[in-house]
């Protein structure tokens, strides 16, 4: 837990320095989270070029408006990944045709991606392990809806259609799963 806190403080300091126009801080922030953001974007849009464009846009937004980050609303990493996810999901939903083409270009992968990539900063591999463990700890039906929603960019109604479930069931499974993840990752039962 101490590592996480120190990491968060360091991230906030990097964002503060980006606000001062510090290019080195910007590069460090990118090296720290760019690979994860790109992995997430590629996972959702399944088009390498588009994923790169999304990540580029996210980090340019950080450079241009670092004040958009509010420490009271969460961590820097959640902010960055949230921006990446929003854009990627927008892309998926706006470009369904492109998505179909890309599905042939890049094979779908499970969350447990076997690729081995060196991550510059310490702390992130531990984070990855913790998140995967939290996902593994979910009941299968909760994990399924959360994975379809987050990693495939499907909306609640699309998931209901695909799984042939009532919309209310999709919503309740999502909430129950998110509550469990909240407890596992943030140590918050409520």
């Amino acid at each position, binding site marked *: 837990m101490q590592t996480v806190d120190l990491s968060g403080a360091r991230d906030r300091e990097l964002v503060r320095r980006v606000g001062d126009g510090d290019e080195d801080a910007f590069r460090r922030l990118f090296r720290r989270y760019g690979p994860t953001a790109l992995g997430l974007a590629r996972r959702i849009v399944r088009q390498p070029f588009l994923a790169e464009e999304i990540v580029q846009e996210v980090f340019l937004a950080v450079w241009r408006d670092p004040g958009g980050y509010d420490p009271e609303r969460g961590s820097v990493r959640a902010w960055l990944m*949230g921006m990446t996810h929003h854009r990627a999901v927008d892309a998926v939903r706006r470009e369904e045709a492109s998505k179909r083409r890309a599905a042939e270009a890049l094979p779908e992968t499970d969350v447990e991606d076997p690729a081995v990539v060196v991550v510059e900063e310490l702390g992130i591999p531990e984070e990855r392990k913790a998140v995967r463990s939290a996902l593994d700890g979910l009941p299968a039906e909760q994990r399924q809806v959360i994975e379809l929603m987050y990693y495939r960019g499907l909306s*609640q109604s699309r998931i209901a259609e695909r799984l042939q479930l009532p919309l209310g069931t999709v919503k309740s499974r999502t909430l129950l799963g998110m509550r469990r993840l909240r407890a596992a990752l943030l140590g918050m039962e409520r």
Partner: protein
Amino acid sequence: MRDHAAIEELIALGALDGLDPSGARELAAQRSDHGADCEECLRLESTYDEVAGRLAFAVEPAEIRDGFEDQLVTLARGGENPERGDDAPPSIARERDRRRFARPMRALAGVVAAALIVGAGVGGYLLAPKEESATRALEQLLRQPNVQQLELTGGANGTMNVYYAPGHPDAFLVGSGLDQPPSGKAYELWMFRGQTPVSAGCFAPENGNVLQEVNADPSGADAMAITVESNACPAAPTSQPVMSGAL
């Protein structure tokens, strides 16, 4: 303390970007009902956003290709994209994160608050020379001690806010990231008093940006909404709102 069970479900789905437009509208309506300062809502939003952000780390990171970091820095510094030969914005720029992570812009008063609103919500757009007149009028409005902000949300892309001050004759619609309307169409802003809509004018974004003066005081209205209408700017809406907000 009021019940948060229903809104918690919507917030959790929203954090995963899983809401349909109808769900997003429902969340916006409930969020408005709870109030911008609802502490429990803010807590739920921040914690579920945090959980969602962590989920990214279950995915294996991708290798950054050689030259990408330098290209990014070059663009950040205002240079041209060395690979694309232009600095056109990516096609999928979105501002939704601004709504969810930017400092909450509650109803603020005074010059300092006005400066914050301009800085956080409009950015460089206010510097466009051809908008100087409107900009000055907006700045004047924002200096009013009772300035109010109404965020419009819905299925359309972008961020849209109405700034007004009860008793002040003019209001402003300010936003960014709004898609161009289809050919022959325009966006139309409405003020609803009860079930009765009153047109507040048609507009079209410029490069996604909107700075539209509204010659009316919305403080007596119950809600505001934006629809897509013909360029003729009809006197009554003919389509469902793409964005709306309750006063």
